[in-house]
């Protein structure tokens, strides 16, 4: 058995950094704390690369199948003879892949923040929180016990709360961090009950044993769980759906996504870390981790599929109407995670049918790079313009050449234009959807086109559109440019990694074929959407003037683009935006959000209503006391037989 115990070092490194910086940072190394955090994480990153190379290329494979290895296990607490809570480290393709992603993106964010957060008053605190977050996230992906997952899951929530609320002088940041915390807590509730159900029927909290027991159709655990039911749905479906609800909360799936756009109040590098590559994919990771069990239950998988597909579409439509660049990115994240979710949903376990699983993980992997690049690029832009609004931007390509090129590459990657990374992963997802569910495939295809449209709308609005009026103060220090360059290189390169032979549902390499004819539809649609975006947004206020001019030379214009233009303008400006996009944004803002507010106000109302009970008069108290006894007595002597 190969030895991977050294992986323990990877999460412990940021934990140590957190403790050191948290306790002594503000006093002793106020300015060095960034360097300390970064160097410490660099070591973690190197170790994870070593682990990845060892696992994927040296000794992870036995008989052509990647093994699940428990690298480290410590029985932390025995709750009862059957149920023990272990602290373990699981090494399998997805955990190793996530290790690389999390440490690498976190390292980039650490480096970027050196420049971006420079001069902040609580610089050391910021790095302490970053380290805490990285630690919790690493702990989450390495967990071998479902309770351990839950502990780190909550820790991730706590540390992201701290990070989003970092600017706690800003009331909006405070409100946002609270909202994120409470909404995800609601979702975690589902997760908690799901864990209790799985633990109760499975008789263990160990993920490996749980999977083993619940995937064998004859096992007593599976039989009991499939037979037991509540409201006509089997306990297995309940448990998995509840676990998925927990995942949907963290991964911002509809209708639990409402916290994500608001969470953009946090520092931008934080968004690059939390809302691009790590925390928001935790839900996808969770489903993937328990995928063999999900595979046993078609109903739960359908919930995953449709929630994912709907979220992908909804978010893409909303993204087209936003003007805050970080919110566009937030919705785009939600949309891309929707892709990952439904890819899992349409997948099966093992062999050729496991394509969706592989595609989902592949997309998670490539998305991490280009999305964090987009966020960091947006951070650089905000750093320059001091505003989040598209209206204040435009023409920045000359002032920020490095950011411009990096951002362009990221846009090409997320739009899925070959040979950039997003193309490969999205292609696999579409293929998986095509083979199992045509409706989902249609939604995915349309969403892909929308993705290209809103991303290039964003790109042109920031970098082209009009002449820049911003007073340039330089593009930022090397520490801000370097991560952009590195991530841009990744956004080009990572698509060529032979992912299908490394990360699959059952560990066996999967043959994939690039089918050129299949790619025509998505790539063609994407290109059209890109061109439309460039046509509309490349130059500011161009269209009305052109339209007016066209009336003079009607003949020349009519054949060329006038007609198309008008139709397009009519459809987008008059129909799509006001009649589709805005209502959806409205529903999102008032109905979904409003429902949450309603819940809060109802709670407050009931609370006010029963205040009368607490009158301060002892004789009343005695009355209630006695009524309580009488009610119990009547209930149990006469009614409960």
């Amino acid at each position, binding site marked *: 058995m190969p030895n991977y115990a050294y992986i323990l070092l990877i999460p412990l490194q940021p934990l140590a950094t957190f403790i050191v910086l948290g306790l002594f940072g503000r006093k002793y190394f106020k300015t060095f704390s960034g360097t300390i955090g970064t160097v410490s994480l660099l070591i973690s990153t190197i170790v994870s690369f070593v682990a990845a190379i060892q696992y994927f290329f040296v000794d992870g494979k036995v008989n052509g199948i990647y093994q699940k290895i428990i690298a480290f296990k410590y029985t932390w607490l025995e709750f009862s003879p059957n149920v023990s809570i272990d602290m373990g480290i699981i090494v399998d393709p997805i955990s190793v892949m996530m290790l690389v992603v999390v440490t690498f993106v976190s390292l980039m964010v650490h480096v970027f923040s050196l420049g971006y957060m420079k001069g902040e008053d609580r610089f050391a605190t910021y790095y302490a929180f970053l380290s805490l977050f990285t630690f919790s996230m690493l702990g989450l992906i390495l967990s071998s016990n479902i309770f351990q997952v839950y502990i780190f899951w909550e820790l991730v929530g706590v540390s992201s709360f701290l990070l989003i609320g970092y600017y706690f002088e800003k009331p909006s940041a405070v409100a946002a961090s609270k909202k994120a*915390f409470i909404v995800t807590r609601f979702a975690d509730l589902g997760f908690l009950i799901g864990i*209790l159900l799985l633990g109760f029927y499975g008789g263990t909290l160990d993920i490996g044993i749980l999977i083993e027991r619940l995937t064998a159709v004859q096992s007593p655990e599976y039989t009991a769980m499939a037979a037991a039911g509540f409201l006509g749905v089997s306990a297995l479906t309940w448990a998995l759906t509840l676990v998925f609800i927990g995942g949907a909360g963290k991964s911002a799936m509809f209708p639990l996504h409402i916290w994500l756009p608001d969470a953009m109040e946090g520092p931008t590098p934080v968004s690059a870390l939390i809302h691009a590559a790590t925390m928001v994919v935790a839900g996808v990771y969770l489903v993937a981790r328990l995928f063999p069990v999900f595979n046993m239950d078609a109903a739960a998988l359908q919930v995953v599929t449709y929630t994912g597909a709907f979220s992908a579409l909804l978010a893409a439509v909303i993204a087209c109407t936003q003007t805050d660049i970080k919110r566009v990115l937030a919705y785009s994240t939600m949309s891309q995670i929707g892709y990952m979710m439904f890819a899992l949903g349409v997948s099966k376990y093992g062999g050729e049918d496991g394509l969706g699983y592989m595609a989902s993980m592949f997309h998670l992997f490539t998305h991490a790079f280009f999305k964090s690049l987009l966020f960091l690029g947006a951070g650089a832009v905000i750093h320059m313009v001091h505003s989040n609004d598209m209206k204040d931007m435009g023409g920045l390509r000359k002032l920020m050449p490095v950011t411009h090129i990096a951002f362009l590459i990221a846009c090409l990657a997320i739009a899925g234009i070959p040979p950039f990374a997003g193309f490969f992963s999205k292609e696999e997802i579409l293929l998986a959807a095509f083979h199992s569910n045509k409706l989902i495939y249609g939604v995915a295809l349309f969403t892909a086109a929308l993705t290209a449209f809103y991303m290039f709308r964003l790109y042109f609005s920031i970098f082209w559109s009009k002449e820049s009026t911003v007073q340039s103060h330089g593009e930022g220090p090397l520490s801000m440019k370097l991560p952009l360059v590195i991530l841009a290189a990744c956004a080009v390169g990572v698509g060529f990694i032979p992912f299908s032979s490394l990360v699959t549902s059952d560990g066996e390499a999967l043959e994939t074929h690039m089918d050129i004819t299949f790619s025509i539809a998505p790539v063609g649609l994407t290109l059209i959407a890109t061109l439309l975006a460039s046509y509309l947004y490349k130059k500011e206020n161009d269209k009305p003037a052109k339209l007016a001019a066209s009336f003079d030379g009607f003949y020349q214009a009519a054949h060329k683009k006038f007609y198309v233009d008008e139709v397009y303008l009519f459809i987008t400006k008059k129909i799509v935006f006001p009649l589709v996009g805005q209502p959806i944004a409205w529903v999102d803002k008032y109905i979904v959000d409003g429902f949450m507010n309603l819940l809060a106000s109802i709670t407050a109302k009931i609370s006010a209503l029963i205040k009368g009970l607490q009158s301060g008069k*002892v004789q009343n108290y005695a009355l209630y006391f006695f009524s309580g006894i009488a009610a119990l007595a009547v209930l149990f002597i006469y009614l409960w037989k």
Partner: protein
Amino acid sequence: MMLVDFFILLKQELVITVILFLLLFIKLGKDRTNESLLIIINVLLFLNFVAGFCCCQEGMLFNEMFRTTNLIVLEKNILNLAIWLISLQSYAWLKTHKHLIEFYILLLTTLLGMFFMISSGNLLMFYLGLEMSTIPLAAAANFDLFKRQSSEAAMKLIISSAFSSALLLFGISLLYGTSGTLTFSELTIHLNGAPLQIFSFILLLSGFFFKISAVPFHLWTADVYEGAPVAVTAYLSVVSKAAVLFVFVSVLYTTFKPLANIWYPVLCILSLLTIIVGNLFALRQNNFKRFLAFSSIAQVGFILIGISGSSQEGTASVIYFILIYVFSNLAAFGVVSLVSALTGKENISDFKAFYTTNPLLSWILTIALFSLAGVPPTAGFFGKFFLLIAGAAKGNYILIGVAALNMVISFYYYLRVVKAIFMDDNAEPIAKIKIPAMPKLALYICVAGIVLTGLVSYVYDYIYSLSTGF
């Protein structure tokens, strides 16, 4: 039985009694300053806590009137720890109090009562202990001698307890009438579920519910907590609840096991009521003590869920949670009592921008509130989770679901306080407080407890290994 065994079985009660006598002698002797008295008393209480750990032995005395097991010794140790912590924390308040020794005499008398109650093997003994642990407390609640609210609290406490005791005693006598015995071990055999027995059992239960302030027997709690001095409030909400819960678990699991089909649904209904009402009230409180009072009502609801599991895990998780609850609640009360004693401010709105002036106290309070809310990695998280697992063993998922939902609601109001401390503006934040050594020690112990009880698995394993014989 040898005389030595006799003393060893009664050692914790004897130590308390000796301390009580010592206090009386000190009172009669020459005048000492309050500071030196506080040092002496706190050292004595610490020794009392340490003494609880040596020479443990299991056995019965006085015809099963008094029994002790390793678990009971552990429970008494938890109470000893709690009273020591409370005593350390009330340093600032007691330093200037004229009747310091009387206060301790009252508290220790109630503690002695609780010890007898926990060790009782007979309903009469139980009743005696319960009364002994209640009546002196009413006097203690009146110890802010010049505050009307304090007298009101004492009055309400004594009247409500008299009421509940009367009903409890009525229940006991009916039980005696139907079974002919008061000894726990014999009582079990005679329980047959006749209506009169059920009625008397419900009366008995209501006595318990009154003490642990489960809804609808909780109404006295808020008024008493608000009016009483903070130290007494902390004592009421931690020590006296814990003591009754200890007895409750063991009595339900052993003596009243034949009536499980009655008390299981009662527990389910009342635990939900208690959690929901406690939460709804806590949402709107502005007085910090009242807020903690209602939040502790909700915490008791969670404990009841753990009890409903009726298993070894049930006992273990309840005792484990109570230990955590002692640390978390006392950390919160410790900060509040310091602020209240030194500035007289007790409202949550007074704590706005508390962080700007008192960062250390703010962090301690935050950790305590997070533990009460059940946020990892604080111990409260583990405690609540274990209670839910224990409760889930019965397969009643609606109960668990509603309880878990309430965890989120409780989260909201704990977070509201944290937000006030760190994020709200305040023109006149509470001035910087110089923390005296003793309260500081107590707060550090509490924080260490909150962190370590969760992370060091030995604690739970130890409690679990003792929780046999249900």
